[in-house]
């Protein structure tokens, strides 16, 4: 997946090529593009911080990101990694939400940063856009819910 999203035209192409935006009508893509900007992070950078307002989500173009939680007296515990074609940050779907987890770059990361507040406003103003985006983000939520359930079931644990 290309990470050359530095010009307006390149950003539009890169956005359209991202799997999460596949098949989105051009008019909707333009609305999303108005909320988008290219972003890059070095290894170790925090893309999201637990407790911070859910203001900017990321469509990953390259690199991998660890979703983790800090706990006193122990190392951060990573429960999921996400990579190119995936999304970092879904809490923005809910108004006034804060990020629930930390997101840290495991190496150099390129993304399309989405101004979540502006995008949510655009969805409020245009319910068709909102529904189209929901149809893209809800499967991500479902996949993460299923994955979480499998992790909670601890299927590799003691069968007894």
């Amino acid at each position, binding site marked *: 997946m290309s990470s050359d999203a530095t010009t307006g035209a390149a950003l539009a192409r890169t956005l359209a090529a991202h799997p999460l935006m596949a098949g989105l009508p051009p008019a909707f893509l333009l609305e999303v593009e108005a909320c988008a900007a290219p972003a890059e992070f070095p290894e170790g950078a925090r893309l999201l911080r637990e407790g911070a307002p859910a203001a900017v989500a990321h469509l990953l173009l390259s690199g991998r990101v660890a979703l983790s939680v800090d706990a006193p007296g122990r190392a951060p515990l990573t429960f999921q*990694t996400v990579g190119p074609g995936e999304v970092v940050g879904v809490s923005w779907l809910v108004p006034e939400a804060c990020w629930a987890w930390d997101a840290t770059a495991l190496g150099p990361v390129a993304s399309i940063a989405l101004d979540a507040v502006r995008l949510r406003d655009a969805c409020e103003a245009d319910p068709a856009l909102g529904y189209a985006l929901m149809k893209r983000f809800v499967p991500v939520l479902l996949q993460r819910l299923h*994955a979480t359930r499998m992790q909670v079931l601890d299927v590799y644990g003691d069968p007894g």
Partner: protein
Amino acid sequence: MAIPAERRMVDATTPRPARVLSRRREAEDVWTLAVEAGPQDLDAAPGRFAMLTAFGVGEIPVSYSGDPAAEGRVIHTIRAVGAVSRALAGLEEGAMLGVRGPFGKGWPLAEVEGREVIAVAGGLGLAPVRPAIRRLVARGERPTLVYGARSPAQALFREDLADWRARGVEVEATVDHAGPDWRGHVGVVPPLIARRVRDPARTVAFVCGPEVMMRFAASALLEAGVAAEAIHISMERNMKCAVGLCGHCQFGGDLLCRDGPVAPLARVADRLHVAEL
């Protein structure tokens, strides 16, 4: 002279003594035993299993995690979770155990030449997949392995994973949770599958792990376009006699000790969602 059927049955149902050659710890509760091989062990094709007896304790089915034909000894990897498996996993070098087998049907290695093989394994499910990957690599093929474990410390056969990577095998390892030192994936196995299926029509999948994981992995393979006939899963049930007589391992129309443990998804898919089975 052909061996009479009655004699073959006695041989198959009577444990023969074998000596433990070495024992090594793979993870906190997982041990690998190397056991001296007999002539019958040359039939221990990848995916088949043996019945192992801890004398005075009991007998359990254990898959082959090595290839006796290539290594000259039998390798079994055992998770110490019950009375028998704990007793077997605790056997030191020189100790004796009872062995019956090999039994069952293994991975269809002869049918996959020239096709793309993706192996999907979870937890101890890597054990029966390991000899299959070794054979594929030995004949110059480059399978893909997607492997899930509970944590980095619970990942099995780490030396093999590194060796296979060095030999061009695409190995994607993921764990349910990890600390900051782990550089691999964190999360469950199924979402990693789709991107590794490049040519669904030519792909054959070997899947082994906890049944919940296998169901989701099979769904991911089907969604990626792999045919149900080309997805082979290794089923686990309560094998007792191992020769198709007692019925303890019945799974619908199959006795898994005889008709499995490896079976094409196309044959067993409907039964995977029947709770009573």
